[in-house]
């Protein structure tokens, strides 16, 4: 963002729509909370910044229906504080500090959804994307629309919520969201295993995946040549107690602290962060190849700041992510057909929003153009 960048801070949904209409086509950075960096846009690239931090109202909270409505700039901390007295939470938890953004509490719900960080409790992208049940948005051409609704089960209309989660804001600006919530179980405990050697740890993790099919979260955490397992359990006291006995792991945190505690270590990731996914069955061969540090989630999503040296085998995908830079949302689809549709979507909805986000689209477009020119 350069000094000449025009900053717009709308105070209402209507003002936000108006602002996007006025900015049509202008390369625009959208940010919601204090923690937003220049993600998605390099300095000097943007001519405008749309700051949604003043859209900070929780518009409804219906504890009995396990759902709420929030504006984009509501911080995760505010949301959490509003939900806690009702024994409610987002299923993916109040996300751990993201490796790329640092402080958690100041992260806004809009940013969290747009960036879709891998949250330990989410069974990979699966769960975070299912928490957004409705959305009101304005696209890069200044056209507002809604999708989904307030109820937790709903198939009416196309699921544009899915296009927002993890999009980095490249297609439209989410202004208000409807979220599904969970009622927290009677007891929540975070267990930590003793340190294991790599092979032993991976074997234990695989065994637990098989025999303990539904933990709230289960991360395998690597530090150089050792690793440990973090296990978040929730349920009735009797059940949790039985699982503590069964695993022999040590209870480290209880209740809210446990819910928030898992995944904290991601905070000290450095430099390039690698995101990706791996098939559990292919993991161990690759890990023999060099030093690494990071964590792998229950279904195989990972975030690491050092990965083994060798090329990953089939079934392991690695996306490098600069600290504070482009993340998963910028990952180009490998398939040319999917890239084509992504470009259509960007053309149809995106306008000037987050120009470098999905930058592969522009480079793919220019490649296609030059191919056409050559022929």
């Amino acid at each position: 963002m350069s000094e000449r960048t025009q900053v717009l801070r709308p105070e209402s949904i209507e003002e936000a729509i108006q602002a996007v209409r006025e900015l049509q086509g202008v390369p625009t950075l959208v940010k919601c909370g204090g923690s937003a960096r220049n993600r998605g846009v390099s300095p000097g690239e943007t001519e405008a910044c749309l700051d949604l931090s003043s859209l900070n109202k929780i518009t409804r909270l219906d504890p009995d229906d396990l759902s709420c409505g929030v504006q984009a700039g509501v911080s995760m901390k505010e949301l959490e504080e509003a939900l806690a007295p009702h024994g409610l939470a987002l299923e993916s938890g109040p996300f751990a500090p993201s490796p790329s953004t640092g402080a958690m509490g100041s992260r806004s719900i809009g940013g969290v959804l747009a960036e879709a960080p891998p949250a330990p409790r989410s069974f990979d992208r699966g769960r975070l994307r299912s928490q957004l049940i409705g959305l009101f948005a304005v696209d890069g051409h200044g056209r507002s629309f809604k999708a989904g609704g307030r109820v937790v089960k709903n198939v009416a209309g196309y699921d544009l919520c899915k296009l927002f989660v993890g999009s980095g804001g490249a297609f439209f600006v989410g202004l208000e969201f409807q979220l599904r919530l969970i009622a927290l179980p009677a007891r929540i405990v975070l267990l930590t295993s003793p340190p294991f050697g790599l092979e032993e740890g991976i074997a234990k993790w695989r065994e637990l995946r098989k025999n303990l099919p539904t933990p709230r979260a289960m991360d395998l955490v690597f530090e150089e040549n050792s690793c440990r397992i973090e296990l978040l359990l929730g349920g009735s006291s009797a059940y949790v107690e039985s699982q503590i006995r069964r695993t022999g792991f040590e209870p480290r945190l209880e209740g809210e602290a446990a819910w928030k505690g898992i995944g904290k270590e991601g905070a000290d990731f450095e430099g390039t962060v690698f995101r990706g996914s791996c098939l559990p069955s292919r993991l161990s061969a690759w890990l023999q190849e060099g030093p690494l540090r990071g964590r792998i989630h229950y279904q195989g999503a990972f975030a690491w700041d050092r990965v083994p040296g060798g090329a990953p085998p089939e079934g392991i995908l690695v996306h490098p992510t600069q600290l504070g830079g482009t993340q998963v949302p910028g990952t180009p689809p490998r398939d040319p057909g999917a890239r084509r549709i992504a470009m259509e979507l960007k053309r149809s909805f995106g306008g000037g929003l987050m120009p470098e986000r999905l930058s592969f689209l522009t480079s793919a477009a220019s490649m296609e153009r030059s191919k056409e020119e050559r022929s």
Partner: protein
Amino acid sequence: MKNRFEQKLLELLGKERVFWDPAARLCYSLDGYPIQKHTPRAVALPETGQEIQALVKLALEEGVPILPRGAGTCLSGGATPPKEPCLLVELARMRNLLSWSPEDRYAIVQPGLVNLDLSVLVGPKGLYYAPDPSSQKASTIGGNLAENAGGPHCFKYGMTTDHILAVRFVDGRGEFVHADLEDGPDLVGLFTGSEGTFGIATEIKVRLSPSPERIKTFLASYPSMESACKAVSRIVRCGIVPAALEILDRLTIEAVEASVFAAGYPRDAEAVLLVELDGPATEVEADSPRVVDLLEEERPLAIESTTDAEQRLRLWKGRKGAFGAMGRLKPNIFVLDGVVPTSKLASTLEQVAKIGKKHGIVLSNVFHAGDGNLHPNLSFDGRDPDETKRAMAAGMEILDLCVREGGSISGEHGIGFEKREAMRFMFDEEDLDAFGRLRACFDPRRVCNPEKFFPTGGGCKEGRSAQFGEKSIV
């Protein structure tokens, strides 16, 4: 003498795999939505993705609409051919499990594979495919994907969309697209639930789930619908997540008990509530006393529970056979699919009953109570035009009511022909325009499953969404 379209189709698939004759085509003229019928121009039976691509290209060249069909169990007319004579793509010859990995818990399947068959195939490794529409013995993974199908157990395990990892499809330009959750924008989530309007899925990668170690089913009968609904709310709020929470009302109980699906439900009850817990045995047993306490707080007439597989099947038999049993009430049934917030279940059902009375329609309810997904069943005689009209009018009024209560016109059955006009209850012109632009990214010429989903005609500004007050609120 065959015209060009017919000749090209024959060249592509040969005469064994194309149906022309009127009797065969008639079989494809409707799905589970009994109100509308149109006969397709031809029925093609491809065996590979390449053949599907060739069919889409042919449809584009000849300007003929194209419509994929799984088992045809759709309840909203999604698999009913459009009025404009179409090329219907019957997927019954694409039913293979292509590959799977028990440890990595995924399977890659062809779209015509029947839902339950997949669970049977992967069962020996302690896995299953979690989405379980009540039609799962017949409905296909491709049809489930297109409709984003739910089912009794999606309260805990999520809808089809939560279990699809990747989709390979031929889009409305006749090009292959491989959408994968691993990279790029979430095209998988967009395609799921798009009701065949974005293209035809040729391969689907689904998530497999570990089979639960123990399953315990409870049946609680109540003297009023209100107390059954309140029991559901108590359970939903307590932090235990049952696999299923299903309610049947008195009329349904009577129909079921008089039929071959008799499950031994108490006939003096106004409502029965089925609750199912599943998971590790320790968890199920630890949660059971709490569930019983919560059920008892609403003073049930009786509570029964069992972990025995045969007994559980008996308790579910009535629920699973409920739609079949309705055949005792009238020759035709129109299954609605509205959703309301769970806290409004009881009050909405009272209103629903009034609407049925007002239109003189026999109306019964069997529904997914945990997530507020109502299935009011309107029984009517399709031979009686007046009764059919009244059933349709009652249906629209009920969907309108659901939206007014903060809900939706569809929880799992989709829009299709049935609810396309009701889309205006939820969405205004801007929303529909966004849907239209989205569709154009996949199928710019609207060749895939046209005439559905979008309402006909103008006058959108009268849409219900204006009545929500502030536009910003979804």
